[in-house]
Protein backbone atom coordinates (compact mmCIF):
# COMPACT_ATOMS: atom_id res chain seq x y z
CA UNK A 1 0.00 0.00 0.00
CA UNK A 2 1.34 3.36 -0.99
CA UNK A 3 0.07 5.55 1.83
CA UNK A 4 1.36 9.05 2.38
CA UNK A 5 2.04 10.41 5.83
CA UNK A 6 -1.16 12.43 5.64
CA UNK A 7 -3.24 9.36 4.82
CA UNK A 8 -1.65 7.57 7.74
CA UNK A 9 -2.44 10.41 10.14
CA UNK A 10 -5.99 10.64 8.85
CA UNK A 11 -6.50 6.90 9.27
CA UNK A 12 -4.94 7.08 12.74
CA UNK A 13 -7.14 9.99 13.77
CA UNK A 14 -10.23 8.26 12.42
CA UNK A 15 -9.38 5.06 14.29
CA UNK A 16 -8.69 6.87 17.55
CA UNK A 17 -11.84 8.94 17.36
CA UNK A 18 -13.82 5.84 16.45
CA UNK A 19 -12.65 4.38 19.73
CA UNK A 20 -13.93 7.42 21.54
CA UNK A 21 -10.61 9.04 22.45
CA UNK A 22 -10.57 12.80 22.43
CA UNK A 23 -7.54 13.94 20.51
CA UNK A 24 -7.97 17.53 21.57
CA UNK A 25 -10.52 19.48 23.57
CA UNK A 26 -13.51 20.61 21.57
CA UNK A 27 -12.72 24.03 20.30
CA UNK A 28 -15.49 26.33 19.25
CA UNK A 29 -15.26 30.05 18.96
CA UNK A 30 -17.34 32.12 16.62
CA UNK A 31 -15.30 34.66 14.69
CA UNK A 32 -14.85 37.96 16.48
CA UNK A 33 -17.43 40.46 15.34
CA UNK A 34 -15.50 42.53 12.83
CA UNK A 35 -17.52 45.67 13.56
CA UNK A 36 -17.23 45.44 17.34
CA UNK A 37 -15.07 48.54 17.73
CA UNK A 38 -15.66 50.40 14.50
CA UNK A 39 -16.77 54.00 14.18
CA UNK A 40 -20.25 54.14 12.66
CA UNK A 41 -21.01 56.92 10.21
CA UNK A 42 -24.47 57.38 8.72
CA UNK A 43 -24.56 58.08 5.02
CA UNK A 44 -26.69 57.71 1.92
CA UNK A 45 -26.19 55.17 -0.84
CA UNK A 46 -25.17 57.14 -3.95
CA UNK A 47 -26.47 54.75 -6.60
CA UNK A 48 -30.15 55.34 -7.33
CA UNK A 49 -32.96 57.71 -6.48
CA UNK A 50 -34.26 55.50 -3.68
CA UNK A 51 -31.41 56.90 -1.55
CA UNK A 52 -31.16 54.17 1.04
CA UNK A 53 -29.52 54.94 4.34
CA UNK A 54 -26.28 53.13 5.05
CA UNK A 55 -23.91 52.84 7.99
CA UNK A 56 -20.23 52.98 7.13
CA UNK A 57 -18.09 51.07 9.59
CA UNK A 58 -14.62 52.52 9.86
CA UNK A 59 -11.75 50.85 11.62
CA UNK A 60 -9.93 52.93 14.19
CA UNK A 61 -11.11 55.06 17.09
CA UNK A 62 -10.22 58.36 15.36
CA UNK A 63 -6.89 58.57 17.23
CA UNK A 64 -4.37 61.06 15.92
CA UNK A 65 -1.91 58.43 14.73
CA UNK A 66 -4.34 56.12 13.03
CA UNK A 67 -5.34 56.12 9.39
CA UNK A 68 -8.97 55.01 9.35
CA UNK A 69 -10.14 52.46 6.81
CA UNK A 70 -13.61 51.32 5.84
CA UNK A 71 -14.16 47.68 6.78
CA UNK A 72 -17.89 47.24 6.26
CA UNK A 73 -20.99 48.98 4.97
CA UNK A 74 -24.51 47.85 5.76
CA UNK A 75 -28.05 49.21 5.73
CA UNK A 76 -29.17 51.73 8.35
CA UNK A 77 -32.08 50.21 10.30
CA UNK A 78 -33.16 53.68 11.48
CA UNK A 79 -33.50 55.00 7.94
CA UNK A 80 -37.20 55.30 6.98
CA UNK A 81 -36.64 54.34 3.35
CA UNK A 82 -34.85 51.02 3.54
CA UNK A 83 -35.02 50.19 7.27
CA UNK A 84 -31.75 48.28 7.13
CA UNK A 85 -32.13 46.47 3.83
CA UNK A 86 -30.07 47.14 0.72
CA UNK A 87 -29.97 45.98 -2.90
CA UNK A 88 -26.99 44.03 -4.32
CA UNK A 89 -25.40 47.24 -5.55
CA UNK A 90 -25.78 49.01 -2.25
CA UNK A 91 -24.38 46.02 -0.41
CA UNK A 92 -21.13 46.37 -2.35
CA UNK A 93 -20.54 49.98 -1.23
CA UNK A 94 -17.39 49.01 0.63
CA UNK A 95 -15.81 48.15 -2.71
CA UNK A 96 -16.84 51.54 -4.00
CA UNK A 97 -14.84 53.18 -1.23
CA UNK A 98 -11.91 50.80 -0.91
CA UNK A 99 -10.94 50.39 -4.54
CA UNK A 100 -7.72 50.74 -6.50
CA UNK A 101 -9.64 52.18 -9.43
CA UNK A 102 -11.34 54.89 -7.40
CA UNK A 103 -10.85 58.40 -8.82
CA UNK A 104 -8.93 60.43 -6.25
CA UNK A 105 -7.66 63.38 -8.30
CA UNK A 106 -8.85 65.72 -11.02
CA UNK A 107 -8.37 64.23 -14.48
CA UNK A 108 -8.62 66.46 -17.53
CA UNK A 109 -8.96 65.47 -21.17
CA UNK A 110 -8.34 68.48 -23.37
CA UNK A 111 -10.55 68.97 -26.46
CA UNK A 112 -9.21 66.71 -29.23
CA UNK A 113 -6.86 64.90 -26.88
CA UNK A 114 -6.97 61.12 -26.47
CA UNK A 115 -5.62 60.96 -22.91
CA UNK A 116 -6.55 61.98 -19.40
CA UNK A 117 -4.08 64.17 -17.52
CA UNK A 118 -4.02 64.88 -13.80
CA UNK A 119 -4.66 68.56 -13.02
CA UNK A 120 -5.26 70.62 -9.89
CA UNK A 121 -8.63 71.53 -8.44
CA UNK A 122 -7.82 75.22 -9.04
CA UNK A 123 -7.45 74.49 -12.73
CA UNK A 124 -10.73 72.59 -12.87
CA UNK A 125 -12.80 75.13 -10.95
CA UNK A 126 -11.31 78.01 -12.86
CA UNK A 127 -12.01 76.36 -16.20
CA UNK A 128 -15.56 75.41 -15.29
CA UNK A 129 -16.29 78.97 -14.12
CA UNK A 130 -14.79 80.47 -17.26
CA UNK A 131 -16.73 78.22 -19.68
CA UNK A 132 -19.91 78.68 -17.65
CA UNK A 133 -19.68 82.45 -17.90
CA UNK A 134 -18.83 82.29 -21.58
CA UNK A 135 -21.87 80.06 -22.34
CA UNK A 136 -24.20 82.07 -20.14
CA UNK A 137 -23.16 85.36 -21.69
CA UNK A 138 -23.87 83.97 -25.15
CA UNK A 139 -27.06 81.98 -24.53
CA UNK A 140 -28.99 83.53 -21.63
CA UNK A 141 -32.56 84.66 -22.36
CA UNK A 142 -32.49 87.81 -20.31
CA UNK A 143 -36.22 88.52 -20.52
CA UNK A 144 -37.03 85.55 -18.31
CA UNK A 145 -33.57 84.68 -16.86
CA UNK A 146 -33.53 81.22 -18.51
CA UNK A 147 -30.40 79.33 -19.44
CA UNK A 148 -30.92 75.95 -21.11
CA UNK A 149 -27.44 75.54 -22.57
CA UNK A 150 -25.93 74.45 -19.24
CA UNK A 151 -26.98 71.64 -16.90
CA UNK A 152 -26.20 71.24 -13.24
CA UNK A 153 -25.99 67.85 -11.57
CA UNK A 154 -26.51 67.35 -7.88
CA UNK A 155 -26.51 64.05 -6.05
CA UNK A 156 -28.93 61.99 -4.01
CA UNK A 157 -26.48 62.10 -1.13
CA UNK A 158 -26.79 65.89 -0.90
CA UNK A 159 -28.65 67.21 2.11
CA UNK A 160 -31.79 69.35 1.91
CA UNK A 161 -29.68 72.39 2.74
CA UNK A 162 -27.26 71.58 -0.07
CA UNK A 163 -30.11 71.21 -2.53
CA UNK A 164 -31.70 74.45 -1.39
CA UNK A 165 -28.42 76.25 -2.02
CA UNK A 166 -28.01 74.48 -5.36
CA UNK A 167 -31.46 75.64 -6.47
CA UNK A 168 -30.93 79.12 -5.17
CA UNK A 169 -27.50 79.60 -6.75
CA UNK A 170 -28.14 78.02 -10.12
CA UNK A 171 -31.85 78.28 -10.87
CA UNK A 172 -32.85 81.45 -9.06
CA UNK A 173 -29.47 83.13 -9.45
CA UNK A 174 -27.87 82.05 -12.72
CA UNK A 175 -31.08 80.95 -14.48
CA UNK A 176 -30.07 77.34 -15.21
CA UNK A 177 -33.18 75.34 -16.18
CA UNK A 178 -31.83 71.73 -16.33
CA UNK A 179 -31.18 70.93 -12.68
CA UNK A 180 -30.72 67.21 -12.31
CA UNK A 181 -29.34 64.68 -9.98
CA UNK A 182 -27.39 61.56 -10.82
CA UNK A 183 -30.08 59.26 -9.52
CA UNK A 184 -32.56 60.18 -12.23
CA UNK A 185 -30.18 59.92 -15.13
Amino acid at each position, binding site marked *: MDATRRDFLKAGAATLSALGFDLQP*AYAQARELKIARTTETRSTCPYCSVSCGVIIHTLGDKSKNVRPSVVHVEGDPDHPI*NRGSLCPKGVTLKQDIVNDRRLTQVLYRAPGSDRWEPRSWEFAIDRIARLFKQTRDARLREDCNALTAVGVIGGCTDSNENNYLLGKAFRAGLGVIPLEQQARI
Partner: protein
Amino acid sequence: MKTLELKRVSATAAPAPGVREQATVSKYIDTTSCIGCKACEVACQEWNDLPAETTVQLGTYQTLPELTPNLWNLIRFNELDHDGALRWLMRKDQCMHCGDPGCLKACPAPGAIVQYMNGIVDFNQEACIGCGYCMTGCPFNIPKLNQKTQRVYKCTLCSDRVSVGLEPACIKACPTGCLQFGTKTQMLDLAGKRVAQLKGQGFEHAAVYDPPGVGGTGVVTVLAYGDQPELYALPKDPTIPLAVRIWKTPLKWLGSLAMTFGVVGTVLHYLRYGAKKAEE
Protein backbone atom coordinates in the same frame (compact mmCIF):
# COMPACT_ATOMS: atom_id res chain seq x y z
CA MET B 1 -17.39 30.91 27.12
CA LYS B 2 -18.78 29.53 23.90
CA THR B 3 -18.20 26.03 25.29
CA LEU B 4 -21.38 26.31 27.33
CA GLU B 5 -23.30 26.79 24.11
CA LEU B 6 -22.25 23.55 22.43
CA LYS B 7 -25.10 21.14 21.85
CA ARG B 8 -23.24 18.66 19.64
CA VAL B 9 -19.55 18.20 18.85
CA SER B 10 -18.28 16.02 16.02
CA ALA B 11 -16.34 12.81 16.71
CA THR B 12 -16.53 13.24 20.46
CA ALA B 13 -17.81 10.45 22.68
CA ALA B 14 -18.18 12.64 25.76
CA PRO B 15 -21.46 14.55 26.09
CA ALA B 16 -21.37 18.08 24.73
CA PRO B 17 -20.82 20.66 27.47
CA GLY B 18 -23.64 23.03 26.51
CA VAL B 19 -25.97 24.03 29.34
CA ARG B 20 -27.22 27.45 28.30
CA GLU B 21 -30.85 27.41 27.30
CA GLN B 22 -31.22 29.23 24.04
CA ALA B 23 -34.12 29.34 21.62
CA THR B 24 -33.47 27.66 18.27
CA VAL B 25 -32.91 30.37 15.69
CA SER B 26 -34.05 30.05 12.13
CA LYS B 27 -34.05 31.75 8.78
CA TYR B 28 -37.32 32.14 6.94
CA ILE B 29 -37.22 32.02 3.14
CA ASP B 30 -40.37 32.82 1.19
CA THR B 31 -39.57 31.62 -2.33
CA THR B 32 -42.77 33.22 -3.61
CA SER B 33 -41.72 36.80 -2.87
CA CYS B 34 -38.04 36.46 -3.82
CA ILE B 35 -37.23 38.68 -6.79
CA GLY B 36 -33.80 37.13 -7.40
CA CYS B 37 -31.88 40.36 -6.80
CA LYS B 38 -29.02 38.45 -5.10
CA ALA B 39 -28.50 41.10 -2.43
CA CYS B 40 -28.21 38.20 0.05
CA GLU B 41 -25.47 36.63 -2.07
CA VAL B 42 -23.46 39.84 -2.15
CA ALA B 43 -24.10 40.62 1.51
CA CYS B 44 -22.76 37.18 2.41
CA GLN B 45 -19.60 37.67 0.39
CA GLU B 46 -19.11 41.14 1.83
CA TRP B 47 -19.66 40.27 5.47
CA ASN B 48 -17.50 37.16 5.32
CA ASP B 49 -14.77 38.89 3.26
CA LEU B 50 -14.89 36.09 0.72
CA PRO B 51 -13.06 36.49 -2.59
CA ALA B 52 -15.19 36.88 -5.70
CA GLU B 53 -15.70 33.76 -7.80
CA THR B 54 -15.62 33.86 -11.57
CA THR B 55 -19.22 33.42 -12.65
CA VAL B 56 -20.45 30.92 -15.21
CA GLN B 57 -23.07 31.56 -17.88
CA LEU B 58 -25.76 28.95 -17.37
CA GLY B 59 -28.46 30.44 -19.54
CA THR B 60 -30.15 31.89 -16.46
CA TYR B 61 -29.23 34.65 -14.05
CA GLN B 62 -27.78 32.10 -11.62
CA THR B 63 -24.28 32.98 -10.48
CA LEU B 64 -22.76 29.49 -10.41
CA PRO B 65 -24.14 25.95 -10.80
CA GLU B 66 -23.30 25.00 -7.22
CA LEU B 67 -22.08 26.50 -4.00
CA THR B 68 -18.30 26.75 -3.76
CA PRO B 69 -15.86 27.06 -0.85
CA ASN B 70 -16.00 30.84 -1.39
CA LEU B 71 -19.71 31.15 -2.17
CA TRP B 72 -21.87 30.13 0.77
CA ASN B 73 -25.15 31.53 -0.46
CA LEU B 74 -26.56 30.97 -3.94
CA ILE B 75 -29.85 31.98 -5.48
CA ARG B 76 -31.03 29.11 -7.65
CA PHE B 77 -33.04 30.32 -10.63
CA ASN B 78 -35.23 27.27 -11.13
CA GLU B 79 -37.64 27.54 -14.04
CA LEU B 80 -41.00 25.80 -14.34
CA ASP B 81 -43.24 25.57 -17.36
CA HIS B 82 -46.68 25.88 -15.81
CA ASP B 83 -49.39 25.45 -18.47
CA GLY B 84 -47.29 27.28 -21.02
CA ALA B 85 -46.37 30.10 -18.66
CA LEU B 86 -42.92 30.47 -17.13
CA ARG B 87 -42.77 30.32 -13.38
CA TRP B 88 -39.54 31.40 -11.77
CA LEU B 89 -39.01 29.34 -8.63
CA MET B 90 -36.06 31.18 -7.16
CA ARG B 91 -34.66 29.76 -3.97
CA LYS B 92 -31.86 30.90 -1.74
CA ASP B 93 -29.58 27.91 -1.30
CA GLN B 94 -27.28 27.69 1.69
CA CYS B 95 -26.64 25.47 4.70
CA MET B 96 -29.96 24.32 6.14
CA HIS B 97 -28.61 24.07 9.72
CA CYS B 98 -30.32 20.71 10.29
CA GLY B 99 -31.57 19.73 13.73
CA ASP B 100 -29.73 16.42 13.28
CA PRO B 101 -26.84 17.40 11.01
CA GLY B 102 -25.50 14.67 8.72
CA CYS B 103 -22.21 16.52 8.29
CA LEU B 104 -21.60 16.49 12.03
CA LYS B 105 -22.47 12.81 12.25
CA ALA B 106 -20.09 11.91 9.44
CA CYS B 107 -17.20 14.08 10.64
CA PRO B 108 -14.24 12.12 12.08
CA ALA B 109 -12.34 15.18 13.36
CA PRO B 110 -13.13 16.04 16.98
CA GLY B 111 -14.60 19.52 17.26
CA ALA B 112 -14.42 20.31 13.55
CA ILE B 113 -18.20 20.56 13.33
CA VAL B 114 -20.27 21.83 16.22
CA GLN B 115 -23.90 22.59 16.80
CA TYR B 116 -24.64 25.45 19.18
CA MET B 117 -27.52 25.49 21.64
CA ASN B 118 -29.35 27.88 19.32
CA GLY B 119 -29.20 25.31 16.52
CA ILE B 120 -26.48 26.87 14.36
CA VAL B 121 -24.21 24.24 12.78
CA ASP B 122 -20.73 25.71 12.46
CA PHE B 123 -17.50 24.43 10.97
CA ASN B 124 -14.27 24.99 12.82
CA GLN B 125 -11.61 24.97 10.14
CA GLU B 126 -8.88 24.83 12.76
CA ALA B 127 -9.87 21.25 13.61
CA CYS B 128 -10.94 20.29 10.08
CA ILE B 129 -8.77 17.61 8.49
CA GLY B 130 -10.17 18.10 4.99
CA CYS B 131 -11.33 14.50 4.59
CA GLY B 132 -14.63 15.60 3.03
CA TYR B 133 -16.79 13.09 4.93
CA CYS B 134 -19.20 15.91 5.81
CA MET B 135 -19.85 16.36 2.11
CA THR B 136 -21.08 12.76 1.89
CA GLY B 137 -23.09 13.15 5.08
CA CYS B 138 -24.97 16.22 3.86
CA PRO B 139 -28.24 15.49 2.03
CA PHE B 140 -28.32 19.03 0.62
CA ASN B 141 -24.86 19.10 -1.03
CA ILE B 142 -23.72 22.15 0.95
CA PRO B 143 -20.17 21.78 2.39
CA LYS B 144 -17.43 22.43 -0.17
CA LEU B 145 -13.75 21.58 0.01
CA ASN B 146 -11.27 24.32 -0.75
CA GLN B 147 -8.50 22.57 -2.72
CA LYS B 148 -5.91 25.16 -1.70
CA THR B 149 -6.46 25.18 2.06
CA GLN B 150 -7.76 21.57 2.22
CA ARG B 151 -10.55 22.64 4.57
CA VAL B 152 -14.30 22.53 4.14
CA TYR B 153 -16.40 25.70 4.22
CA LYS B 154 -20.07 26.63 4.34
CA CYS B 155 -22.58 29.17 5.66
CA THR B 156 -22.12 29.87 9.39
CA LEU B 157 -25.56 31.48 9.73
CA CYS B 158 -23.35 34.46 10.67
CA SER B 159 -22.74 32.90 14.09
CA ASP B 160 -20.52 35.91 14.86
CA ARG B 161 -23.41 38.32 14.26
CA VAL B 162 -26.08 36.14 15.86
CA SER B 163 -24.00 35.68 19.03
CA VAL B 164 -24.10 39.45 19.63
CA GLY B 165 -27.79 39.77 18.81
CA LEU B 166 -27.55 40.80 15.17
CA GLU B 167 -29.33 39.10 12.29
CA PRO B 168 -27.36 37.27 9.56
CA ALA B 169 -26.02 39.54 6.80
CA CYS B 170 -28.21 37.97 4.09
CA ILE B 171 -31.39 38.53 6.09
CA LYS B 172 -30.57 42.14 6.80
CA ALA B 173 -29.95 42.96 3.15
CA CYS B 174 -33.14 41.43 1.65
CA PRO B 175 -35.14 44.32 0.15
CA THR B 176 -38.43 42.43 -0.35
CA GLY B 177 -38.56 40.95 3.13
CA CYS B 178 -38.81 37.43 1.76
CA LEU B 179 -35.99 36.64 4.19
CA GLN B 180 -36.73 36.94 7.88
CA PHE B 181 -34.89 35.89 11.00
CA GLY B 182 -36.04 34.93 14.47
CA THR B 183 -36.70 31.92 16.65
CA LYS B 184 -37.84 28.82 14.85
CA THR B 185 -41.26 29.04 16.52
CA GLN B 186 -41.71 32.57 15.20
CA MET B 187 -40.58 31.60 11.71
CA LEU B 188 -42.87 28.55 11.56
CA ASP B 189 -45.74 30.77 12.65
CA LEU B 190 -44.91 33.27 9.91
CA ALA B 191 -44.55 30.48 7.35
CA GLY B 192 -47.90 28.98 8.33
CA LYS B 193 -49.62 32.32 7.74
CA ARG B 194 -47.94 32.75 4.38
CA VAL B 195 -48.93 29.23 3.29
CA ALA B 196 -52.56 29.91 4.22
CA GLN B 197 -52.39 33.11 2.18
CA LEU B 198 -50.90 31.28 -0.83
CA LYS B 199 -53.55 28.58 -0.64
CA GLY B 200 -56.17 31.31 -0.75
CA GLN B 201 -54.50 32.61 -3.90
CA GLY B 202 -54.83 29.27 -5.69
CA PHE B 203 -51.58 27.52 -4.79
CA GLU B 204 -53.31 24.55 -3.20
CA HIS B 205 -50.03 22.65 -2.72
CA ALA B 206 -48.22 25.49 -0.96
CA ALA B 207 -46.29 24.14 2.01
CA VAL B 208 -43.55 24.76 4.52
CA TYR B 209 -40.33 22.84 3.88
CA ASP B 210 -39.00 21.69 7.24
CA PRO B 211 -38.09 18.04 6.63
CA PRO B 212 -38.33 15.82 9.73
CA GLY B 213 -35.80 13.32 8.29
CA VAL B 214 -32.92 15.58 9.34
CA GLY B 215 -34.53 16.72 12.58
CA GLY B 216 -36.06 19.79 10.97
CA THR B 217 -33.96 22.55 9.45
CA GLY B 218 -32.81 25.91 10.74
CA VAL B 219 -34.10 27.31 7.48
CA VAL B 220 -37.88 27.45 7.14
CA THR B 221 -38.74 27.59 3.45
CA VAL B 222 -42.14 28.44 2.01
CA LEU B 223 -42.75 26.70 -1.32
CA ALA B 224 -45.68 27.46 -3.65
CA TYR B 225 -45.35 23.94 -5.06
CA GLY B 226 -44.79 22.26 -1.72
CA ASP B 227 -45.66 18.80 -3.07
CA GLN B 228 -42.73 18.95 -5.49
CA PRO B 229 -39.67 20.28 -3.63
CA GLU B 230 -37.51 18.82 -6.47
CA LEU B 231 -38.64 21.78 -8.57
CA TYR B 232 -36.65 23.95 -6.18
CA ALA B 233 -33.62 21.60 -6.25
CA LEU B 234 -34.57 20.35 -2.78
CA PRO B 235 -34.67 16.64 -1.87
CA LYS B 236 -38.19 15.42 -1.19
CA ASP B 237 -37.49 13.57 2.03
CA PRO B 238 -33.86 14.17 2.99
CA THR B 239 -32.19 11.90 5.52
CA ILE B 240 -28.63 11.29 6.56
CA PRO B 241 -27.25 8.77 4.00
CA LEU B 242 -27.63 5.14 5.11
CA ALA B 243 -23.91 4.42 4.72
CA VAL B 244 -23.05 7.25 7.12
CA ARG B 245 -25.66 6.10 9.63
CA ILE B 246 -24.44 2.48 9.59
CA TRP B 247 -20.79 3.46 9.64
CA LYS B 248 -21.22 5.88 12.52
CA THR B 249 -23.49 3.83 14.82
CA PRO B 250 -23.50 -0.01 14.66
CA LEU B 251 -20.25 -0.40 12.75
CA LYS B 252 -18.50 2.07 15.01
CA TRP B 253 -19.31 -0.03 18.07
CA LEU B 254 -18.39 -3.27 16.31
CA GLY B 255 -15.14 -1.71 15.17
CA SER B 256 -14.33 -0.51 18.68
CA LEU B 257 -15.14 -3.96 20.05
CA ALA B 258 -13.00 -5.70 17.45
CA MET B 259 -10.16 -3.30 18.14
CA THR B 260 -10.36 -3.87 21.92
CA PHE B 261 -10.44 -7.66 21.55
CA GLY B 262 -7.59 -7.43 19.07
CA VAL B 263 -5.42 -5.54 21.56
CA VAL B 264 -6.37 -7.83 24.47
CA GLY B 265 -5.81 -10.90 22.28
CA THR B 266 -2.38 -9.68 21.21
CA VAL B 267 -1.33 -9.05 24.81
CA LEU B 268 -2.62 -12.46 25.93
CA HIS B 269 -0.89 -14.17 22.99
CA TYR B 270 2.36 -12.48 23.90
CA LEU B 271 2.03 -13.48 27.55
CA ARG B 272 1.21 -17.09 26.64
CA TYR B 273 3.63 -17.71 23.77
CA GLY B 274 6.14 -14.87 24.07
CA ALA B 275 7.90 -13.07 21.25
CA LYS B 276 8.35 -14.84 17.96
CA LYS B 277 11.99 -15.63 17.35
CA ALA B 278 13.37 -15.98 13.90
CA GLU B 279 14.90 -19.38 13.32
CA GLU B 280 18.44 -19.34 12.06
